[in-house]
């Protein structure tokens, strides 16, 4: 099992929010993560660091500190008052044997452990480009899509072919939106 990164703190069928165990220790944007049973896969579409208590706004405190790291050393409570959360868009689920590109029948449970997906699962997901349609309809930005495809390309056997084929799939999805397609492809090239 890959590294555990956090727990689900909010979930619905098409997305879930994860709180990371450690401040600032979130996988990069576009990473594929998984959680729950059946396993639900998602793509990180947004990473936020904010106060645990929304009613206690953060104030600037480092006026007299020489470096940014000094601020955290002088105020160790910050690691408990702040948290890093990430939003994941669901792109599929697995019943153990097969991977389905679609929303799971039920959302994952709260406090489900969240892991970074391993190469085996990523390759299974990347066999079809249906996940791109889900990402586009879930409102994922161009940056998320390009980051996700770049990361997958580094984990599959023939990364270039994967990028070309995913570009072709995007061209089919984004008919009539050539500027957007062009922007994503430029980020991939």
């Amino acid at each position: 099992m890959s590294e555990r990164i956090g727990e689900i703190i909010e979930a619905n069928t098409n997305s879930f929010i994860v709180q990371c165990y450690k401040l600032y220790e979130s996988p990069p944007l576009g990473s594929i993560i998984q959680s729950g049973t059946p396993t639900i896969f998602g793509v990180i579409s947004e990473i936020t660091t904010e106060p645990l208590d929304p009613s206690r706004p953060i104030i600037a405190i480092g006026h007299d500190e020489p470096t940014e790291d000094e601020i955290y050393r002088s105020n160790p409570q910050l690691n408990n008052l702040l948290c890093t959360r990430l939003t994941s868009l669901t792109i599929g689920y697995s019943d153990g044997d097969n991977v389905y590109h679609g929303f799971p029948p039920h959302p994952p449970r709260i406090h489900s452990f969240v892991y970074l997906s391993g190469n085996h699962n990523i390759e299974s997901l990347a066999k079809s480009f249906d996940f791109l349609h889900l990402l586009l309809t879930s409102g994922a930005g161009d940056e998320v899509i390009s980051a996700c495809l770049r990361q997958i390309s580094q984990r599959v056997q023939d990364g270039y072919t994967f990028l070309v084929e995913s570009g072709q799939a995007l061209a089919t999805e984004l008919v009539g939106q050539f500027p957007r397609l062009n922007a994503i492809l430029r980020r991939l090239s």
Partner: protein
Amino acid sequence: MIVEDNMAQSNEQSLLGHVVSGSLRDGIEIRMGNQISVEDIKEGTYVTIHGQKKSFFGLITNVKLMTTDPNLQFSYSATDNPFISEIISSSMTYGSLSVLPMLTLPAVLGTEETVEPAKTVPSHFSQVFQASERDVEVVFGKEDKTHFFIGNPLDMETKVCINLDELIKRSSAVFGKSGTGKTFLTRILLAGLIQSDLASSLVFDMHNEYGSTGQDRDRGRRVSGLKQIFENKVAVFTLDPENSKRRQAKYDFEVQIGYDEIEPEDIQLLQATLNLSNVAAEAAYTFEAKLGGPKKWLHAFLEMEIEDVYTLAQCNGVNLQAARSLHNRLTRFKRIGFMKPTAIDDSVKRMLDLLNKGKHVILEFGRYGDDLTAYMLAANLLTRRIHNRYVYMKTEAEGTTKANEPRPLVICIEEAHRFLNPAVAHQTIFGNIARELRKYNVTLMIIDQRPSAIDSEVMSQIGTKLACQLDNDRDIDATLGGTSGSRELRSVLSKLDSKQQALIFGHAVPLPVLVRTREYGSDGSYTDLTRPSWHTTDFGIETEEELEERLKELF
């Protein structure tokens, strides 16, 4: 019975794409698969479309570059960035083919079902394949007595055959600019007629190219004439024996035309070439009436002094000017060598006898080929007499068995627009034949470089047209007039190579076909013409007579 297996066929043919839209009238659009480059597809190529219930046979009439997004043409990244270019070229751009569905093919070969004109279109997403050799053979027929191998489709080695039975039922035409291979194509067609023995032919050989040795100017070689290839089946007549001797060309008979054979109608036909006014041409009728009737008038007229002509004209109310110019121009006949006061031999009768015996007659003009007056006079006169004879024979044979009917005759004329232009088509015998002589078993084969100059009424009666390269708009319009899908054929016609290519359409072929005409000029080509592959049976026997002989020997 051979059951056509679409799946098996799919494997041996290359899939071009799928039907995406279209109509019966304007043709259907095929979206090409990405694995095939548009650069490999040529206009005029045949395709078969496997619809849900029927197979269709069609012709590619246009190749287009398409994109799924019109904005693509304004972007540079598709050309600047190889990665983006690779993606876009394989997903957003595609080739599109316009295909004219021409025929529906039988689903099961060997049944009663035959190839029929397409009256519907294949359904959406039907698979489109490049036509296989077998498909082409099913459509054009296998080479046999009535199916004559005329050439190959472009990019294919299959034999395209024309149906000679259909070809001779109506008039046919060979059009093309000068130097595009009209003469070669005509030679091949005539060889086909001789080979098949379905009809006799009479060729007015204006430039002495068909009977004896001709020239292949492009390859700088001499090619055999039909007399050399089919020694026993062809008779060469000449109007100019001196010229034949000089060319060392063998001829069988000399033709002379007597003044007594010329009628005022012939003068009327020559009105333009003799530069006669209407009044002058009409005056010939008056002189005919006054100078002893049909047989004698011309001789008498030419022997008259000009003063006597004036007197005669004055007495009969003929304009003096017209009478003078008529007399003046007709004296030209005296300078034409083959025109005699009385002919020594009845050449027409001789020709008719030969034609009825199944021989083919080639009339060489020698140096008179360049004299339009002589050419038109001789061609018109001989044809008129042959025509009269055929009409008589056909009428006699009515009510009796088919065997008594005159043997079909194809009259082949060059520079046909001289006889068939709108001004004279109604008067010349050729106009008459083109319009109605089909019922008398006589048809024309018209060879011309200016189809637009031919009377439209005559053009509309032509059954089969073989067009070499033409680039004048009016000629193209005239050639394609009334043909279904003429808009699509137009572009095919204007892009023909200037050598060895012809577009054939009309009754003798089931659909318009662009062919690379078969070889004529090499030794092998002559053998193919005299001993076609279908002639030889499995037992090495070539003709029915030979078969009978062999049978007699056996028993």
